[in-house]
């Protein structure tokens, strides 16, 4: 979309602002172009987003037009603002709550059926504040979608589950995936929706605050995850022999537990982000309950972002006692670990190193891939999700490095999933066939 601004009789030049594509997926890049300004013209490119909670987020960068009177955000360096240097997607990942906002805000889109609408504007001069009081030279709206066209969203309540299944566009059949978030609970759909946009039938599962827990007061156990797995396995458009599990943070604890100890769940591969294998292994199926009581004295029926428990302190040093760790030496499927070396929340890096050692001793290390990112923090989300300083303070990481980690790990996660879920008739080298 191209926009010009022109006042009738004045000597003001006409600025042309375009963003392409104007409608894209959340993990796609866009190009922001400003044209028809004077060479050397100073301008500020500004992004504004009002999230579902009603909070305002902004990002901005200072540019100087080239000799041809243009600014290309993908190629030109920002001289300052919420990001600096050449950052094609800086306007997205450096979004932060506007000054005066309440603290601890985290941007998470809960309704994935509508796009994020971001307004991108260009202002004259190098501004750092007061954007609301100025009239921009031009503005456009960009839509960022979690669901590609044709992706179907199906709420799942059978078997007592609180889940949402996203089926990719097309006839299928598709490989499947169970998608688990962490300690905040709730039914968070956006990553599963994105995965479905990449051809994987993904089910977002609420396992900490599901309806059944709200009604009975009881935490879920193995059967809950096995029921979710069965929904995928038996679905006519899903390949029962090609199901993966992806967990972040606390979701890693669950994924590793089920991958090794469940008699029902047979994973083709697993992805664990920012988590640990440290947990009491006591043969009990009430493992979620026991995990939480082991880790924290917090009220187990309340899960929200303000409850920022630092798991790091509780889990370090990594125990040598085998009954306190998932026996990853028994894993039979490929495992991808994604960790930020500045994770302030969980000892992800240390856990990954310990898992590697355990797998080396057990002889299944060839199944393991570790992606370890210096200066990345805990919340390694899909790319271009805001990783502003305010968020980093809580979770660790340095914004630029964290954003790089998100972009790189997502790309590699998709490749890992594609190779293991779509490729060949045999899964990873020595993994036996549950197929």
């Amino acid at each position, binding site marked *: *979309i191209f*926009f010009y601004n022109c006042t009738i009789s004045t000597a003001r030049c*006409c600025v042309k602002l375009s963003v392409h594509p104007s409608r894209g997926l959340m993990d796609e890049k866009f190009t922001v172009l400003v044209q028809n300004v004077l060479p050397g013209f100073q301008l500020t490119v500004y992004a504004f987003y009002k999230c579902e909670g009603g909070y305002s987020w902004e990002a901005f960068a200072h540019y100087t037009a080239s000799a041809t009177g243009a600014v290309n955000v993908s190629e030109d360096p920002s001289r300052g603002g919420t990001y600096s240097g050449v950052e094609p997607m800086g306007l997205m990942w450096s979004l932060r709550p506007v000054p005066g906002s309440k603290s601890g805000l985290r941007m998470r889109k809960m309704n994935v059926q509508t796009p994020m*609408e971001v*307004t991108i504007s260009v202002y004259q001069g190098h501004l750092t504040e007061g954007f609301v009081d100025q009239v921009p030279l031009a*503005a456009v*709206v960009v839509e960022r979608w979690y669901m590609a066209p044709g992706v179907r969203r199906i709420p799942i309540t059978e078997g007592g589950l609180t889940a949402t299944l996203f089926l990719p566009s097309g006839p299928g059949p598709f490989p499947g995936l169970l998608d688990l978030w962490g300690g905040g609970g709730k039914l968070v759909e956006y990553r599963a929706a994105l995965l479905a946009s990449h051809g994987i039938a993904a089910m977002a599962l609420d396992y900490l605050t599901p309806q059944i827990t709200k009604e009975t007061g009881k935490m879920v156990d193995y059967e809950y995850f096995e029921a979710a797995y069965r929904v995928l396995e038996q679905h006519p458009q899903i390949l029962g022999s090609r199901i993966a599990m992806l967990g972040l943070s606390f979701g890693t604890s669950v994924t590793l537990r089920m991958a090794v100890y469940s008699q029902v769940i047979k994973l083709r591969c697993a992805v664990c982000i920012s988590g640990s294998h440290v947990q009491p292994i006591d043969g009990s199926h009430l493992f979620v309950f026991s995990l939480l009581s082991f880790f924290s004295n917090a009220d187990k029926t309340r899960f929200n972002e303000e409850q920022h428990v630092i798991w790091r302190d509780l889990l370090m040093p990594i125990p040598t006692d085998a009954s306190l760790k998932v026996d990853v030496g028994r894993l039979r499927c490929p495992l991808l670990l994604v960790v930020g070396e500045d994770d302030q929340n969980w000892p992800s890096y240390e856990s990954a190193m310990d898992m590697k050692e355990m797998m080396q001793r057990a002889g299944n290390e060839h199944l393991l891939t570790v992606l370890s990112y210096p200066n990345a923090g805990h919340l390694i989300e899909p790319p271009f999700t805001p990783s502003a300083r305010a968020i980093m303070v809580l979770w660790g990481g340095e914004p630029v490095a964290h954003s790089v980690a998100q972009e790189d790990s997502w790309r590699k996660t998709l490749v890992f999933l594609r190779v293991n879920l779509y490729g060949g008739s045999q899964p990873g080298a020595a993994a036996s066939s549950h197929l």
Partner: protein
Amino acid sequence: EGAPVSLVRARWLQSVVISVTPSRALVDETFRVAVQNLPPGSPVTLHSLHRSEDEDLWEAFGHYVSDSRGTVSVADDFSFGGTYTGKEAMGLLWSMSPVPGSREGLRLRKKNVCIPQLVNISVYGGHVEEGFGERLPLASTLTERWHLGPGVRRIEISERGVRGTLFIPPGPGPFPGMLDMWGGGGGLLEYRSALLASHGYASLALEYFTAGELKSADKEFSYFETAFNIVREHPQVIPDRVGLFGLSLGSLMASYLAAESSVIEPRCCVCVSGGHLYPRGANLQQLFRAYSSHSHKLRVDEHNREIWRSINLPIPEDLSQKLDVGKINCPMLLVNGIDDQNWPTVECAEDMAHMMRAAGKEHLLTRIEYPDAGHLIEPPYSPHSRATKFIKDVILLWGGQTKPHADAQEDSWRNILAFLQKHLYCTQNPKAKM
């Protein structure tokens, strides 16, 4: 053979991937359709399917052979057969036609511009010619084609007796404006104005008679002037940069306004498939009566489709039967198809040029004429219909051959946008201004 069909299919299917990039785009943007993970050298068919708002199915297809890496790229590879051939990135859209067994005389026109056109793009094994509905594709994906860009606002207009829909681009403005008029089918069609707004023009799609009620159209000249003023007076419109855009009858109205109005001053005028044959001083009712008086010249082709082209030929010498185009004072862009069977648009353009030259106004005129293009020159990648139902059950022959007509739509739109940019937006060198 012998293995369960679903298993065989699963092993074959599960790796073939089809992608359309971008998956969401404006209708005048190109896309790239690619298929991967095919066996090398495989014959496949790329197929598009669209269910219109009227519940008709439209489809197109091309025959390809995968390369040594097992990929097919529609933008880069040759189609060897189907509804289009050759290297045609957008052939799956512009070569669409109603599926076999459809109703006669269909035309594809978007009514609700707030939701996109959904097109299913699939890949089938082998070179398939028919029966796509009975086969299972190797892979398929959905793509969205939008007339409305993000942030464009849609405002229903019902004031001062004028009915239409105004589309305003996002941003602070102010923006150049447009009065947008369609043809003899009547009704309110928003899609071109939505698209113009997506390119930065505040555009009013005007309804000037009810759909199908051509003979009862009774709007006076002042209706159109009022509509123009509604655009001009809008707080987000630059008052001295409002243009006119018309197709067919709408084009005639645009030329009429440009030549005869003493109230409005269009900055420029785009006339697609129009003319200048208009009895001076007549209103719309009188215009139609004048045309009807020539209806004995109406011809039909071998399929009983009406050819209206000859009704107003030869172009009369009598000046009272034509607009006084010598009075036009704004740049005019005339876009016509040489194979127009509905209206003698090229002959009119020739005569208009002659008249404007006599008045010393020829420098205002730009003419583009496309061989083998017909009357309905729409935004790019719209399917071409050589003949469709018009009012009641009459089928009109519009003319044009599919590929040249598609090329004309693509090329003319590019020229139209450049023309509008030149005359409605600043063009001076910014260096001179600052």
